[in-house]
């Protein structure tokens, strides 16, 4: 199993090679992979339907308890089947739709990688692996949406999709980590048994919010629904795939997967029903505003996703059955409808429905597919969509929470969806023929096979819903956590749900009759939509840019002292706070100072201070030198004769160097204002005080035994030296000394190079420059 999915990624990288061998048929060849997977899944079906759960163990990072374990139960079987079956048709369809496109190979690389990420996502049992696949779908869908990279709109939409879903991905990661802490496991399987403990956990509510943040962004729930219609910038085969079986269903999938462990609480039911119902309504409502066939379908996907979320929220046995049935129905008809939309676009050269008409005679197969699929979308007898819609009404009528709210919104959404379905199915194919950019004719067989099969399945499952009893039942069992036999039927008898269906049919057709006028009314609401959530997205994007440029101007402004001030303030702030809060400074110590030591200390301090206040440069250097010699004396007084000698030599050299170079340097300039000086003085003093306190804290603290004892003991026997410091330098830590020599050599080379390159050469090239005023 793992091999198939990971092998798919490998295959994706070979797509360009396959293109060289098979040309435009490469898509069909690659379709063999999802086709084979689908067949394999079908062979596993009897076992899964029998209640078996297949686990494919594979260690990945054993040390961190991360596995690449795949899990095949009813829910993942349903999803995997949809992904692989629709994947086959999408690959075949794309080879027709993009025929002759120069970037076909790139398209296949990304599409197959996306397919495999999606399969991995629905099959993964380990939450870490799940998250990796989740992010992979975000990245690959970004590449798919932005496939026409020369189109700025496509780039913008792709980026928008990526930002929204990847932002949600961060929330999801937080949720998964919290789940891992709550359940002490990374396995979805093992979370199953802990339902009550998880629901009662303190972290439940924050975890749920993060989880919904991830799922809602991915599945385009309100208020994050805007990215999905924009993702229409993708080539149509991609839209068909993203909308029907994959990407947007990932959010729904994770909610369904965790439903048995987390569902049923008050917050779960309320949040999911509320957001689901609102999304459903808004999706259906916005669908009618658009004349572009793809936008219209995209908003109806938003509607469907809202419905699915709402049904998961309601969570009764009926609702879960409706959930699975609706999911299946939607995948079938939406895949078919998008492919039909692609054929129309491909053959007529326009996406605007209001510009099409009378195409039914020219492209009869397409028209029939569109009709069947749209009837399923509208939920009309005898399509599978009707079965799903009946179940949906049934469960909404029995909803326990927010019942009136979800009932009204469901009815309204059903009415508008029906109108939208009628627009898609009837508008382009009936009525009078209009002028189009291209002369339309029936699409090529490779583009027809997908819609025909998918629409045919919608009809078949509608007429004989018993065929999918087992599959739906197994998926419901996984979502519910306990077995539930399902028996779907087309005709439920005359009941309230049927009445609602008929009402929505009648009113929906009425809206369809008056669509133009309806659009006119909706047009008046445009200013309102301009302030919708998408405006919020653009605003936050703008703010991110503004805040970053402001922050860059503040922190990275090119003034050395500003960097220094920032670093010091952070140092003083954090270290000072830690010292103050964690430690009680014991300022009681014996002041054991001898007179000559106090004199040397005074010498050093006054040297440092004088160096700061002296105006002549020579005096300042002399003052630093005085301090340096004071330090040398200190080394000598406190048992470090080697240090004393070295310091004495180096200090002398430094002073000589400074004096040699000094007169080639400018005089001290008086550049700062009084206020700046006070500010710097405060910062400098604060740092000084902090360092003093730190030294007082650190002196005589030993957290672990020093290695010095070993060095003292072994200096003579092992190193054959009587001066322990020297033995350390040339023996115990000889590599350090070697490094030091390198540093010095580099510095010497640098100094030499800079001195050799004379300023005259530079001057010669820039003759207009003035001579320096200071010799």
């Amino acid at each position, binding site marked *: 199993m793992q091999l198939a999915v990971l092998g798919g990624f490998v295959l994706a990288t070979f797509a360009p090679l396959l293109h060289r061998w098979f040309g435009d048929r490469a898509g069909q060849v690659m379709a063999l992979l999802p086709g084979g997977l689908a067949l394999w899944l079908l062979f596993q079906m009897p076992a899964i339907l029998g209640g078996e759960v297949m686990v494919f163990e594979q260690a990945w990072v054993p040390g961190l308890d991360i596995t690449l374990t795949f899990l095949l139960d009813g829910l993942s079987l349903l999803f995997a089947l949809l992904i692989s079956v629709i994947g086959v048709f999408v690959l075949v369809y794309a080879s027709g739709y993009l025929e002759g496109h120069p970037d076909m190979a790139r398209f296949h690389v990304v599409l197959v990688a996306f397919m495999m990420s999606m399969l991995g996502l629905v099959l993964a049992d380990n939450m870490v692996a799940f998250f990796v696949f989740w992010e992979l779908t975000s990245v690959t869908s970004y590449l798919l949406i932005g496939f026409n990279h020369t189109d700025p709109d496509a780039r913008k939409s792709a980026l928008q999709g990526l930002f929204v879903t990847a932002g949600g991905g961060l929330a999801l990661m937080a949720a998964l980590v919290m789940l891992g802490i709550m359940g002490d496991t990374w396995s979805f399987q093992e979370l199953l048994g802990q339902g009550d403990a998880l629901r009662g956990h303190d972290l439940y509510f924050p975890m749920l919010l993060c989880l919904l943040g991830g799922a809602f962004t991915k599945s385009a729930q309100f208020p994050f629904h805007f990215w999905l219609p924009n993702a229409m910038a993708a080539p149509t085969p991609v839209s068909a795939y993203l909308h029907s079986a994959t990407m947007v269903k990932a959010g729904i999938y994770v909610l369904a997967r965790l439903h048995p462990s987390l569902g049923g609480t008050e917050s779960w039911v309320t949040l999911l029903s509320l957001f689901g119902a609102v999304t459903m309504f808004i999706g259906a409502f916005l669908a009618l505003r658009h004349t572009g066939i793809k936008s219209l379908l995209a908003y109806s996907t938003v509607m469907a996703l809202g419905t699915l979320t709402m049904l998961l929220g309601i969570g009764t046995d009926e609702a879960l059955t409706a959930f699975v049935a609706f999911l299946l129905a939607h995948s079938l008809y939406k895949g078919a409808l998008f492919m039909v939309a692609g054929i129309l676009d491909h053959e007529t050269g326009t996406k605007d429905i209001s510009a099409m008409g009378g195409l039914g005679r020219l492209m009869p197969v397409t028209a029939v597919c569109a009709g069947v699929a749209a009837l399923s979308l509208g939920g009309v007898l005898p399509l599978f969509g009707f079965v799903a819609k009946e179940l949906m009404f049934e469960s909404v009528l029995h909803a326990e929470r927010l019942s009136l709210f979800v009932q009204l919104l469901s009815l309204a959404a059903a009415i508008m969806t029906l109108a939208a379905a009628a627009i898609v199915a009837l508008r382009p194919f009936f009525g009078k023929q209009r002028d189009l950019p291209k002369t339309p004719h029936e699409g090529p067989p490779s583009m027809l096979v997908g819609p025909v099969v998918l629409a045919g399945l919608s009809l078949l499952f509608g007429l004989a819903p018993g065929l999918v009893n087992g599959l739906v039942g197994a998926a419901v069992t996984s979502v519910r956590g306990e077995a539930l036999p399902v028996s779907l039927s087309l005709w439920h008898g005359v009941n309230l749900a049927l009445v609602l269906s008929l009402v929505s049919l009648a009113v929906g057709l009425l809206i369809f009759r008056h669509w133009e006028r309806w659009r006119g009314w909706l047009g008046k609401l445009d200013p309102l939509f301009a302030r919708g959530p998408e405006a919020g997205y653009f605003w936050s994007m703008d703010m991110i840019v503004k805040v970053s440029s402001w922050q860059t101007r503040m922190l990275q*402004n090119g003034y*050395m*002292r500003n960097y*220094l001030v920032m670093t010091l303030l952070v140092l003083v702030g954090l270290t000072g706070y830690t010292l103050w809060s964690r430690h009680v400074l014991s300022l009681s110590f014996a002041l054991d*100072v001898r007179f000559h*030591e106090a004199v040397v*200390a005074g010498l050093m301090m006054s040297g*440092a*201070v004088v160096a*700061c206040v002296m105006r002549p*440069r020579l005096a300042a250097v002399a003052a*630093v030198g005085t*301090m340096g010699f004071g*330090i040398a004396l200190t080394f000598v007084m*406190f*048992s*470090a004769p080697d*240090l004393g000698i*070295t310091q004495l030599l*180096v200090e002398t050299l*430094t002073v000589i160097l*400074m004096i040699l170079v*000094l007169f*080639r*340097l*400018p005089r001290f*300039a008086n*550049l*700062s204002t009084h206020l700046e000086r006070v500010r*710097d003085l405060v910062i*400098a003093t604060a*740092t*000084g*005080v902090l*360092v003093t*306190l730190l*030294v*007082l804290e*650190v*002196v*005589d603290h030993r957290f672990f035994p*020093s*290695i*010095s004892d070993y*060095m*003292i*003991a072994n200096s*003579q026997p092992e190193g054959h*030296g*009587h001066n*322990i410091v020297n033995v*350390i*330098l040339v023996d115990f830590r000889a590599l350090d000394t070697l490094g*030091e020599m390198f*540093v*010095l050599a580099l510095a010497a080379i640098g*100094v030499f190079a*800079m001195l050799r390159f004379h300023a005259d050469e*530079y001057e010669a090239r820039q003759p207009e420059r003035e001579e*320096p005023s200071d010799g």
Partner: protein
Amino acid sequence: MEPLMAVVIGVIYSAAIYMMLRRSIVKLVIGLMLLSNGANLLIFTSAGLTRGAPPLIPEGLSAPLGDVADPLPQALVLTAIVIAFGVLSFAVVLIRRAYEIVRADDLDKMKDTDT
């Protein structure tokens, strides 16, 4: 003695940072000199100060008599002194070159790559 040394180190640090915050490039060099000296003193003091017991082994013995000062920080400081000198001489020459070419002694005027 350590408390007094702590104060000395604090003063040297303050002076070093004050000088490094100035806009004049020569003052920056002085600040650098002060800071490296302060850092050496800090390492030396942190290990504890010992009077009159240098880490030397008398002739003919294999270990020093009695307790001696910790040799390890001394070795570290010795390295640090020499490195500091290397860095300082590099910085001084670099600043001299920069001044020769840019003719600006104000760090604020050196912040752009165009001269």
